[in-house]
């Protein structure tokens, strides 16, 4: 069993109540930070910890905090991004549902560090039941003097609000989130200026993921140096992984970064192996927006080393033979899964969720979906495969926000690693479209 920073007490009965949460050491970090540390010292601890954003991008949180502009007389904001909605990603909703006070505690400590007196938790509108849980936790915190004016007699004031979104995936992009929070249409903003300079209501703002913010109390209680000892290299600490797909034990796991992928898939502590004793075919290691990897590449890096659950190891080899840790949504495909169908399914999602502001994403995501639909339904042409690659390339890197990349990478990587399967679909439309049909030929060779 590895160290549990976030989930140590998650299964304690009543942990969602303030009383039980405090009995298990809850809100110690708030007392420590507000009474014994300056905001700058808290930021330094987070920097020392090497905590990286857990929403997907993996940008160092302490560095992001230090970019925050501090003009006189202008409010600063902390916004928690709880708009988790990428296919396969469900760690934050699980965590908020089970342990809401951990997030509230993280919000108070982090807001103090950033000098924010008003903070928001922006939550996906569909998760209304979790919103109620959070609101109850916040009300308890207010009643206990942990929120509001003069928290714990420290002279620090903080108001915390929960804001439900309208249910658009694009609102998970930080600037679209801010637009939505301001009551506008959730379209990403052009950058610069970045939110750290001009964010919510044109004021300096930090947007962090639920898991990132919830890791801060442990760092304050145990020091950043201790946190940095956990994990591997620049991938410090622990990470919540939402494992799904054809595995024996789907669920949310907290791992110390650096666990071998093979161990994560096959050990009983985590995924428990492929279900029904089948063979592993492929894995999407970080949420549907990251490149898919076939069995050989998910278990070994480009250099032939065992692949680890870390930011660096999963991206080793670039997109030719690597992928990304992303949000840690680990989706496993067994030998009976059709990659073409799966890619079409992802593509449908990104087509539906594109905001439509910029031309390559608005038109390109739909184009890819339609071509994939054709191939999957037995009407594809050989040239469609190269067309998919070409359209993905036209989108990648040319859009306002990363949704374009998120739509292009799964398609480009599926063709890169499973081209033969696409060709088989086109050459054998009748067999490919039969119920339960799946290509079982040799996987395409990949050169690193």
């Amino acid at each position, binding site marked *: 069993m590895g160290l549990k920073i976030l989930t140590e007490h998650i299964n304690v009965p009543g942990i969602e109540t303030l009383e039980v949460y405090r009995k298990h050491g809850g809100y110690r970090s708030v007392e420590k930070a507000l009474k014994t540390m300056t905001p700058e010292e808290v930021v330094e601890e987070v920097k020392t910890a090497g905590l990286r954003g857990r929403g997907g991008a993996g940008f160092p949180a302490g560095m992001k905090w230090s970019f925050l502009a501090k003009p006189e007389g202008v409010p600063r904001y902390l916004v928690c991004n709880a708009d988790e909605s990428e296919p396969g990603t469900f760690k934050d909703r699980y965590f908020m549902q089970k342990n809401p006070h951990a997030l509230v505690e993280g919000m108070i400590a982090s807001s103090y560090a950033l000098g924010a007196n008003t903070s928001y938790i922006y939550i996906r509108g569909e998760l209304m039941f979790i919103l109620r849980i959070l609101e109850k936790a916040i009300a308890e915190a207010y009643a206990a003097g942990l929120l509001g004016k003069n928290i714990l007699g420290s002279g620090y004031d903080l108001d915390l609000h929960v804001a439900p979104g309208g249910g*658009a995936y*694009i609102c998970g992009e930080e600037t679209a989130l801010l637009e939505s929070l301001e009551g506008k*249409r959730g379209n990403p903003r*052009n950058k*610069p200026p970045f939110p750290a300079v001009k964010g919510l209501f044109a004021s300096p703002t930090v947007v962090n993921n639920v898991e990132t913010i919830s890791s801060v109390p442990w760092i304050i209680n145990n020091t950043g140096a201790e946190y940095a000892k956990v994990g591997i290299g620049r991938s410090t600490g622990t990470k919540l992984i939402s494992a799904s797909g054809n595995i024996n034990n789907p669920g949310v796991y907290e791992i110390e970064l650096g666990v071998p992928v093979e161990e994560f898939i096959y050990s009983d502590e985590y995924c428990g192996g492929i279900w029904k004793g089948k063979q592993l075919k492929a894995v999407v290691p970080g949420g549907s927006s990251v490149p898919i990897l076939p069995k050989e590449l998910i278990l070994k890096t480009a250099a032939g080393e065992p692949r680890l659950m870390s930011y660096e190891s999963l991206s080793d080899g670039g997109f030719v033979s690597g992928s990304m840790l992303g949000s840690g949504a680990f989706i496993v495909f067994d030998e009976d899964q059709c990659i073409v169908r799966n890619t079409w399914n992802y593509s449908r999602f990104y*087509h*539906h*969720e*594109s*905001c*439509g*502001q*910029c*031309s*390559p994403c*608005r*038109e*390109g*995501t*739909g*184009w890819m979906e*339609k*071509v994939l639909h*054709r191939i999957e339904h037995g009407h594809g042409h050989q040239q469609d495969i190269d*067309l998919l690659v*070409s359209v993905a*390339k*036209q989108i990648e*890197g*040319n*859009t*306002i926000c990363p949704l374009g990349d998120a739509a292009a990478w799964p398609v480009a990587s599926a063709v890169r690693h499973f081209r033969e399967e696409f060709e088989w679909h086109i050459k054998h439309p009748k067999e490919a479209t039969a119920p339960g049909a799946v290509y079982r030929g040799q996987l395409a060779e990949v050169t690193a």
Partner: protein
Amino acid sequence: MAKITFDGIEVEVEDGSTILQAARKIGGNVVPPAMCYYGPLKGSGGKCRVCLVKVTQGSAKDPRPMPKLVASCITQVQDGMVVENTTNEDVLNARKGIVEMLLINHPLDCPICDQAGECSLQDLSYEHGVSATRYEEERRTFNKVDLGPYIQLHMTRCILCYRCVYTADQITDKRVHGVLGRGDAAEIGTYIENVIDNDFSGNVIDVCPVGALTDKTWRFKNRVWFTKPLDAHRDCPTCSGKVTLWNRGDQVLRVTARKDEYNEVEEFICNTCRFDKKEMSDWTIEGPRHIDRGSVISANHYELPVVNVPIVPNLPKSTKKNLPQH
């Protein structure tokens, strides 16, 4: 002031200028195209992505190249920046790709479109597009939307540049239209079908780069290249009254705001000037409007006398017989 090198040409611009503004200072063929950026409208730009350029050197202080292509209309210059546009293959390929994307849901109905001849997308496709499309799926179509007596919305042609939305936000006192829906299902609309009826609503026609928003008082009356543009003005209590008249003979077929070489209006005009003043006697004529961009608008403005061309001598006899005798 900041010095930047754009396609090998050094230019000095004011701090805070964008790369596009720097390129426009140079002028000519190096200027990136722009479909959504519109100088007079605050906050426009960054959406269509046709103005993407490569920054090969961020600044003199930080010479690292920018990792991705950037939208030149919203990216500010830094002293010592080096930018490639027409000299960079990645930029030209990306632009070609974006033109292809824009044309997916834009019908090529130029022969019947009132914007033909002054359509930015037509120019863009001519300069950066390819002759055939690889898109074989169904395209989106919409019914025409009635926005009142003056403006016709034909969403099928819309490329969602948001210019008209910014115009309505920024220069009219009553905004009744915006973007509805998401992705390629997004559309410009009035939510509950509504008339756009404020004093400056007609300007949405001028800012539309394609033929999605057209002037009902001008539709199908003529082709723009058969008309004669004249600068004119009148004493208007609402706007500057400085306009361009588009005449056929002495008949005023259309009134628009005056536009610069990048198709951006110099001054927005009111609906009275645009729609209600269609008599020559309403206006003080200043002289011919000089159209100096490579446009078909200037195609029929002959500067040389027309010479009589003899009837082609080698026609088949049967055809010759039917020709009128002079």
